């Protein structure tokens, strides 16, 4: 799994946000590939664009790793509460797009698996 960059300007909450995207990318990547993930991510950025103009400017990427690194930079460049709101809107939109394509039940199943993987790994890290 890809890991979140730490570093100056990034709170612990920020790392948590990015990690959730990396888990999502790790879960969906094998299924839809880098191009599929980046295409959906790009579309989600466009949809939330009217509210978060800076997200709409996200450059198209070829791999999910670079896509999330780009998001990491974007979220780090705004105030934490603004980053949290944008992250929530983006994740909700991404999920809605997935719901529309494969139905909420299957989408939930895939996304829950991403959540479970994250929890398992966090548990192992605590041990």
């Amino acid at each position, binding site marked *: 799994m890809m890991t979140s960059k730490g570093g100056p300007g990034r709170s612990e909450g920020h790392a948590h946000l990015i990690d959730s995207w990396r888990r999502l990318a790790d879960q969906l990547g094998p299924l*839809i590939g880098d*191009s599929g993930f980046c295409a959906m991510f790009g579309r989600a950025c466009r949809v939330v664009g009217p509210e978060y103009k800076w997200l709409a400017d996200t450059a198209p990427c070829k791999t999910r790793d670079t896509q999330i690194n780009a998001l990491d930079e974007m979220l780090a460049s705004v105030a934490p509460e603004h980053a949290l709101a944008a992250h929530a809107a983006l994740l909700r939109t991404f999920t809605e797009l997935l719901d529309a394509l494969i*139905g909420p039940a299957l989408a939930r199943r*895939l996304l829950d698996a991403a959540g479970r993987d994250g929890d398992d790994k966090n548990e192992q890290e605590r041990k």
Partner: protein
Amino acid sequence: MSDKVTLGKLSTGVPGLDVLLGGGLSEFSFNLIAGAPGSGKTTLAHQIMFSLARHDRRALFFTVLGEPPLKMLRYQQQYSFFDMDMVGSCVRYVNLAEDLRAGDFSGVLSRIMKEVESFSPSLVFVDSFRSVAQTARAGNEGVADLQSFIQDLGTRMTSWQATTFLIGEYLHSDVEANPIMTVADGMISLSQMHDQNSVIRKIRVVKMRGQAHLAGSHTFRITGDGVRVYPRVLPPLADERLSGGDVEEEVQRIATGIADLDEMLQGGLPQGHALLVAGPSGAGKTIFGNNFLREGVRLGEKGVAVFFEKGSSSLRNAGLARMVQAGDVSVVESRMIDLTIDELLDELTATIERTGARRVVIDSLSELGLYLAPEGRNQLREVVFRMLAALARLNVTVVMTMGMDDDFTRLRLSQADIAYLADAIVLMRFGESGGQLRKFLAVVKVRGSGHSHDLREYTIDADGISIKPFGTEYEGVVHGLPLTRST
């Protein structure tokens, strides 16, 4: 005891397919599912996967440069066999598109092996394998590399004890598919036959190593439940045809609902017989069939009516409508006009088994051709043969009608030599006499039983068909101009 290895058979879960395969898929086999785009390859593969997958038999589905995975999931989940609870735990999808764009056969193989080692599947699917072959061919690799890759893949999958399915847009004649066909243990070919606006799907097991499969093309349909195959085989023989089976000495007689006809048949129609009632339009064939069903209902028997008409005009008959509404008679009436005999038999058999019907009326064989796809239309005799074989196995007594125009120059009993398939024949005709168009009938044959040879006049009234209790006094009925014997 034999030391030979026993091939484990996996039931595909696709109705009818195991019959074609000779009992199921051979475990650890390396298979190709081939066919043109739209022929149902991905659906067949998914149906097999969801039928076989479980926690101790996991499935890995590699998608390549064909249908985008999300769209595939979007459409495949519409089928009833798609079990979402299996996705993730028992069934995992992996996209190979990027590996394929980036690398060569060895890169693709190492990615496949990495996923196989990680998930330990017992079932592996690669859809579409043609993308793998074509993408690699765009590089510097040729047919020899492809064959080597396939062999390597086959060897590794077998070593992992995985039953493998390569899915590809190949036709049987494709040279490009040859290396795969050579290596594959099994090959299932799907196609669509387009003829006069009708499309019939066909499935063929081209090869299946180590087991006696059923050759030839067989019809299949795709419905909301997925693929259903109709093996082109006759039903098993009745028990009495087998050695040691009971032999019925006294065949039960079935009342036709026309007392005088029962007397001509020496007690009724032998149980299990198929009676052909042939005659021109207006002779009373449909009324004959209704009488037969009504008599069954009176005796507490269920019936099935198979209608091939432009609509349910037969149900305008109040008596029949009441029998249908009461649930004593079930109607099989297709609204499709590219029907195959397999589908018709499937519905007819299911209806008879569900209702426990003892009597079946098919009205009429003349119009059956209008409902059949061209393939069946041109082979009406074979269609009727298969239908009667299936009904004989169910031990029902059948009345089937057939329209026959009199030309009064020769005695025709049926169209398309169908008379030879019937166990009994009642022929109806018109004859002119005294300024009237009179009706006559005769029992032409009854297999295994004597019968009257009278040519008898009959009338039709509100109660149905009434037959005069003696042979007609006219001569020349067969020629259409009856004359009294005295003239």
